[in-house]
């Protein structure tokens, strides 16, 4: 009986160690909030909730290019899948999807952690030729520059 109990506990210990911990997709959740709650009327008011100070710069409120570029989400009409990698202070989110003409594209976003909130620090929109070129892992924006 004692041996059975020891075997059971050993198996339980091994299985619990073998179970990998999967962190919740925190960056995609943050992106989803941005995707759902921003529009042409409010993007400048809420920009500092979703974007880092280094991305926004000083004059985004008056910059005529800011509204459309901060609403880069509009390039993608449908999301196919997404990948992310996160460490203690920054992370990268890669989203594969399709534009309004059903052509494939990728969003590669760098996030930084600021006062407990994940903020978009770099935006790279990559128009690809085929869905075979979709990313299969999280890639940071720098990796798309040739």
């Amino acid at each position, binding site marked *: 009986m004692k041996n059975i109990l020891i075997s059971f506990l050993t198996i339980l210990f091994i299985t619990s160690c073998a179970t990998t911990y999967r962190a919740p997709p925190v960056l995609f959740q943050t992106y989803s909030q941005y995707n759902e709650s921003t529009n042409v009327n409010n993007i400048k008011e809420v920009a500092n909730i979703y974007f880092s100070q280094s*991305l*926004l*710069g000083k004059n*985004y409120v008056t*910059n005529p*290019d*800011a509204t*459309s*570029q*901060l*609403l*880069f989400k*509009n*390039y993608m009409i449908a999301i196919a899948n997404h990948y992310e990698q996160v460490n203690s202070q920054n992370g990268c989110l890669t989203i594969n999807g399709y*534009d309004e*003409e059903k*052509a494939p*594209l990728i969003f590669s976003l760098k996030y930084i952690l600021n006062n407990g909130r994940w903020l978009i620090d*770099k*935006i*790279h*929109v*990559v*128009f*690809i*030729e085929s869905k075979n070129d979709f990313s299969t892992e999280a890639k940071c*924006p720098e990796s*798309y*520059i*040739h």
Partner: protein
Amino acid sequence: MDLKRIEAKITIAKFLELAYSKDKGMTVKIMAKKGGARLTIDQNGKATLSGTAGIVTFSGSPVLDKIGAKIKRVSVSFNNKGGMNVGYNATFDLEYMKLTVMGDFDLEKLITSCSGLLCRAARALKGRHHAYDMELQKIMGY
């Protein structure tokens, strides 16, 4: 949205057209040589096309000024895969984001597109001709 996929592709063709109009011989030498070539345009429109065959500098402002958004830099890498087929990967550095577009085109078609009647008509109008833009669109792989 600022810069669409097709607008970015046509922009690359138009930069090459500017290089070609500045120095036909060198532009063709650079682009037709198998291997890599590079085109960069800074925010002031200073453009450089370079490859192992040589270098062409020209003003990219006529094309840059037509783009709705402010461009900080454009960087294009070309890869001639042999013959007239040229692959490209272009990154537009905008104020808040970067945008990359890629594809391939037939160099001979691009050159001849701008020696025909359509191109002359477009130039005569001192602007851009819709039909010519449509032709560039097809050549640049869209």
